[in-house]
């Protein structure tokens, strides 16, 4: 039996990277995947490839009205909402000395406010759908610090904790909605492409990042998507408010 049979899943950042890999698994496992993304071309292309079980909706995650519209379109098209993946995010290199207030706010708005708004919009629809599962992409940098990613660390720390709030709130309200955070290491996706092209000492950025992980390589989007699939499915029915790490041993 497919693991997500008849489940309707909305995926922010669904047009590329971890979001796109997850959308493919959702459809493979019998679910419906609504791809919500800023990138209309990529989103439409992937939705077209995935066929009738998929749909593209435009989404700027910092816009509450756009979230409400994305959720409404999902429910109108597929009749319910059971799963939400908050995968949209930006990775920005900055330090405490060179980050401006504007840049700090921009990173936190996309990664943290965007995840908050996604959870808020989804819960309203999931309550009408008999419950659901929310998966928020944090990062290993929501668990550990990095000197070169100050605003990103802050935003992912916020996602880590807001996830716990959502989990406990939904548990207390008996909504049958679970919420967990996923903490990937460096995954070979468009987000880290600029890092791979860097030179660090006598190493390429790619080599440097590969050697950072005890497994000696970058993660693949599909490897994170497999964890997300488990969390979206009923197989994870007793997991909520938890931190799921997928990092090649980085935080071990």
């Amino acid at each position, binding site marked *: 039996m497919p693991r997500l049979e008849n489940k309707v899943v909305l995926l922010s950042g669904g047009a590329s990277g971890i979001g796109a890999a997850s959308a493919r698994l959702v459809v493979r496992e019998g679910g419906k995947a609504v791809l919500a993304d800023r990138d209309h071309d990529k989103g439409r292309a992937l939705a077209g490839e995935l066929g009738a079980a998929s749909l593209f909706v435009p989404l700027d995650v910092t816009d*509450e009205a756009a979230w409400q519209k994305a959720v409404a379109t999902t429910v109108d098209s597929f009749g319910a909402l059971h799963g939400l993946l908050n995968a949209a995010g930006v990775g920005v290199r900055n*330090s*405490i*000395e060179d*980050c401006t*207030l504007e840049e*700090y*706010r921009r990173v*936190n708005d996309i990664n*943290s*406010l965007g995840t*908050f*708004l996604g*959870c*808020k919009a989804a*819960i*309203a629809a999931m309550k009408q759908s008999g419950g659901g599962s929310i998966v928020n992409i944090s990062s290993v*940098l*929501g668990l*550990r*610090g*990095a*000197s*070169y*990613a*100050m*605003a990103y*660390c*802050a*935003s*992912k*720390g*916020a*996602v*880590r*904790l*807001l996830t*716990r*709030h*959502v*989990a*406990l*709130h*939904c548990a*207390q309200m008996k909504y049958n909605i679970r919420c967990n955070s996923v903490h990937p290491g460096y995954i070979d996706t468009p987000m880290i492409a600029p890092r791979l092209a860097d030179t660090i000492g006598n190493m390429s950025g790619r080599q440097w990042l590969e050697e950072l992980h005890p497994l000696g390589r970058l993660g693949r989007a599909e490897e994170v998507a497999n964890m997300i699939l488990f969390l979206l499915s009923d197989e994870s029915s007793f997991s909520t*408010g938890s931190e799921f790490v997928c990092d090649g041993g980085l935080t071990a």
Partner: protein
Amino acid sequence: MSGELLDKVAIVTGGASGIGAASAALLAGEGARVVIADLQAGRDGPGRFVRHDVTVDESWKALLADVLGKEGRLDIMVNNAGIAGGPGTIETTTVGNWQQVQAVNSEGVFLGCKYALLGMKETGRDKQAAKGSIVNISSVAGLVSGAGPIAYTASKGAVRLLSKSVALYCAEKKYDIRCNSVHPGGVDTPIFNPLWQAVGHEQGKALLGARHPIGRMAEPEEIGEIVLWLASDRSSYVTGAEIAADGGITTGLVKRPPLAPS
């Protein structure tokens, strides 16, 4: 009092009340010159008051110029100013409330660290080898959620992680500036005024206290002692750490209280 902070200069944001006031008094007790940076002056206490809004970049610029101009140096930054932001769950919190809480609790601490580095580097004798300590007040709500206000919880999670980034950055740059976060449980401060007004001060303290394993709320001085230790050279090998002072909340399997007023 040992006078171990003689000649050191400290800024305490939100220093007019609560944990900030207690920290300022303890730092001054060890001989530090303390600048109380707050929106409004508090009751009489040690320290020089400077009106300051942690959310405004220009206000930080003016504060640092004032401190370096009048005190000549900066050694200790206590980023303590914070707001609870009122009750707000994932379902009820508005974007406006979210942004207001992030502006004070998250952006305010970010700016506090940024200007602390500027001031401490200026203080360092050759402008490369600065020496200093940054203490960021997060919360037990930055470690676990008690289903308290979501905007507050998220902001304290941001402070927890940005503190580590700052600590590592300073270590890599060999600035000799340390940065740590403190995670208090329920502390008897004005942040709980809504609760005091609703059920009375003593009853409110008893209610919240009973939900900590240790059986009571903390007094501000108990958190101030941790701030003092982190600010002093006694903690010279401690950086990027998260110090919980939560009456045992994060220690075991307890039914957690809402960790901020609701």
